[in-house]
């Protein structure tokens, strides 16, 4: 084990095991449960690169700024007044929050989430204002909350969807820019032509909301960030004494965390960390079970011979030609197997196989050795000879084989997950790669000229790291078994 590969394998495996031990503490299992709940990730930017990647761009890239009422950090200042005028109750809620924006590029998105309590009367209204560091105020939009608390009304201030108030924001921004003589109707219409009511080339409102007020603001490529304090002002008016409103606003950055996020805004670090214990447990359990069963069956086959031998070997031949992956794919399509069931199926399809054959050939050799005959001569039973004399001779080989089989199981699980047939509830490395593949993560786009590299790189690196660790361990065992390899 004192070989270079042994030391490297030890260090790598030690790291993985530490990770597997500490991950449940760092990111408890409920984080994983939340993985498939898109609502749990609304505070994260979508498709954000890792924070540290800004060192390549040389710019201070925007982090996500979360503004929320209800006592959370960065909460809104809130004033609520309820009064009665000639039998009619009016409730006014004013929410205000300012934040400092000191980054070099624009945020990726700005969203406003409102929870509101209101009566049946029509006319319950919210008015949203945006104050800029240069003293400008833009009346973003007026809206009517459509759902009551605890559900949130979501208003995207930047998105291109026609259904949400961005249409209103768009008009507000346009009117503001025309009023400030930055542009005119004709130029605007030529810059952002409409077709059938949907913007063909929607303006990126965040660049206009947060850009310096001059001609450059019209083009997202040239717009300069206006640094300073911005603030939201939200006015809610309702008609019952119990009416109330709270708000949460998120100014989404373009970078997030250590490993970035995926298309749902999910923190890829969680998946990356959870991938390690899952891959380790799956690979080691699968390799241990199948190699040990195959070893014992191979030893039994070689030692007892005759019909048992024939039966085990022919079954092994049969199993060897069964294509396990297609069968697993079929089962995955039909039954949506959980990870334990996948493991079970893999072990069931691996009870006999190549190892059975190799171990049998070793046993055929060992069984002719003198000490086996000696054991027979003093009356040791056949099973005693098998377990006390023969299996210990085969075991060193088996250990090496287990280490070398672990990567195969990790790859298999990753392949299944990649194909979308793995355990859907667990964010395994293969699962992440599968998501990245279906979302076209590696295609370069205008917004992401290098593609979504972090989405592919980290899970792939995880798989490679783990398999290399086990492969090195296997080679280290191999050198113990075949001392001649040490010379080279």
């Amino acid at each position, binding site marked *: 084990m004192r070989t270079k590969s042994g030391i490297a394998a030890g260090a790598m495996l030690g790291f993985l095991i530490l990770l597997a031990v500490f991950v449940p503490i760092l990111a408890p299992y409920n984080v994983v449960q939340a993985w498939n709940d898109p609502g749990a990730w609304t505070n994260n930017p979508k498709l954000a690169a890792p924070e540290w990647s800004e060192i390549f761009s040389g710019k201070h890239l925007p982090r996500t700024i979360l503004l929320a009422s209800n006592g959370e950090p960065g909460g809104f200042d809130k004033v609520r007044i309820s009064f009665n005028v000639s039998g009619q109750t009016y409730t006014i809620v004013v929410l205000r929050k300012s934040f400092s924006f000191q980054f070099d590029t624009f945020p990726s998105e700005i969203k406003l989430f409102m929870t509101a309590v209101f009566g049946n009367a029509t006319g319950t209204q919210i008015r949203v204002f945006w104050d800029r560091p240069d003293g400008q105020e833009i009346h973003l939009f007026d809206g009517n909350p459509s759902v009551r608390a605890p559900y949130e009304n979501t208003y995207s201030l930047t998105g291109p969807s026609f259904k949400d108030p961005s249409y209103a924001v768009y008009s507000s921004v346009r009117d503001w820019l025309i009023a400030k003589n930055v542009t005119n109707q004709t130029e605007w219409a030529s810059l952002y032509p409409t077709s059938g009511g949907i913007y063909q080339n929607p303006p990126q409102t965040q660049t206009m909301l947060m850009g310096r007020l001059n001609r450059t603001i019209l083009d997202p490529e040239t717009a300069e960030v206006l640094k300073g304090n911005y603030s939201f002002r939200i006015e809610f008016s309702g008609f019952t004494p119990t009416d109330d409103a709270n708000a949460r606003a998120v100014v989404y950055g373009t970078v997030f965390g250590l490993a970035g996020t995926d298309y749902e805004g999910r923190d890829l670090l969680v998946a990356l960390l959870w991938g390690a214990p899952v891959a380790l447990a799956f690979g080691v359990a699968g390799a241990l079970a199948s190699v040990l069963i195959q070893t014992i069956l191979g030893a039994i086959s070689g030692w007892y011979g005759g019909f048992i031998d024939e039966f085990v070997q022919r079954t092994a031949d049969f199993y060897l030609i069964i294509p396990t992956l297609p069968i697993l794919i079929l089962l995955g399509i039909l039954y949506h197997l959980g990870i334990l069931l996948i493991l079970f199926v893999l072990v069931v399809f691996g009870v006999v196989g190549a190892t059975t054959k190799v171990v049998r050939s070793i046993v055929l050799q060992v069984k002719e050795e*003198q000490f086996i005959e000696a054991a027979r001569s*003093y*009356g040791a039973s056949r099973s005693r000879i098998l377990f*006390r004399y023969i299996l210990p001779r085969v075991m060193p080989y088996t250990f090496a084989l287990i280490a070398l089989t672990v990567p195969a199981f990790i790859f298999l699980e990753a392949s299944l997950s990649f194909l979308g047939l793995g355990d859907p509830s667990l964010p395994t490395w293969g699962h992440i790669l599968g998501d990245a593949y279906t979302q076209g993560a590696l295609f370069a786009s205008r917004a992401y000229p290098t593609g979504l590299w972090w989405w592919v790189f980290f899970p792939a690196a995880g798989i490679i790291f783990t398999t290399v660790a086990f492969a090195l361990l296997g080679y280290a065992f191999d050198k113990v078994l075949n001392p001649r390899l040490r010379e080279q």
Partner: protein
Amino acid sequence: MPLPVLDVKNLVLWYRTRKGPVHAVDDISFALEAGQTIALVGESGSGKTSTANSILRLLPKNVLRYEGEVVFDGQDVMEFDNEEFRKVVRWRGISMVFQGAMNALNPTTRVGSQVAEPLIVHYDIDRREAADQAIEALGKVGLSGDIARRYPHELSGGMKQRVVIAMSLILKPKVVILDEPTSALDVMTQTNIINLLKDLKNTEHLSYIFITHDLGLASELADLVGIVYAGQLVEVGPAEGVFVRPKHPYTGKLLASVPRLRSEAAPDFIPGVPPDLTDPPPGCRFHLRCPVSFEKCGWSAPEFIEQVKLLQISEETKDKVPAIEAMKAKDTQTLLIKPVANGTIAEFAQRLTSFIAQDQETYRFLKSVESVQSKAKVVEVKLHEAMPPPLIGADWRASCWLLEAGGS
């Protein structure tokens, strides 16, 4: 005469192979009294180890025939079923030191547990007590107790051999089969081991079956000697007799093959190769290589033809043999010879008869010719009947037709 501790009668062990049955042990009988040592001596492949294995019922899968009587301590253990045999005979009654002790130890087990293994297998004994007994047994063979914690690869050849002997003694058997116990050891270690075996024989009241091809070691340890040739005992008798005045020609040749320091004579050898045990020669199995074979020894027609062909192709002898066109065995003891068309059949028969008369002392197979008769186109040669010689004698027996005639 005391009852023998081991009496082997007509033991037969044949193996099934693709070429036909291998007569590995073919009717071997000997008796061993308590405290005696019998040395089974023979060439490689003569069936010595097969004899030992068949006494301990260590049979491979391809056994074709396994019969005879092995009377141990008054009981015919061949009648026992496997479980009874395991309980009474294996290691408790008869133990074995295997050929090549180097490999007779499990490399993954410590020496102590290896020595104690028969104890654990046979008696439901406490592990610690077994370990104590193992250390005691190691002490008997002159090894210190701390050896027990070592692995076999940490020991020297001689030490391993002692461990194997300790293991064979752990259940206090009456008979120990020593299958070439010293064959891979240097001479000094061999001597040590033989001395150890001698001491143990006296202190533990053992009987040995000592299987070896080393006549020197056999003479050192043996009371009785059994000479094994082609699956049969050709001579068995007291060591001092057999080694000094061997009765069987094979024993004589074997003894002559041992190099001697003070003798001018070069070591002798036996021409030819040991016979194929799938098809042992008829009559005396040694007759093909025997320097003194004669009429009764059992030449068969195919062997005769083979020998004539050998004479025909040899540069020295091809002119002596009358010109023959073809030879054919009619049955085992009759062959037909068709001469080259040159003169009459009678003339050829004449030439053949004179050749036989002239050269039968040199080419002893010619002695087996009983009659030469002329037929229409061929000459018919009849050979003497082939009969395996019985073991002749009482305490010192040998199977050779010469002994029947009274000479040796």
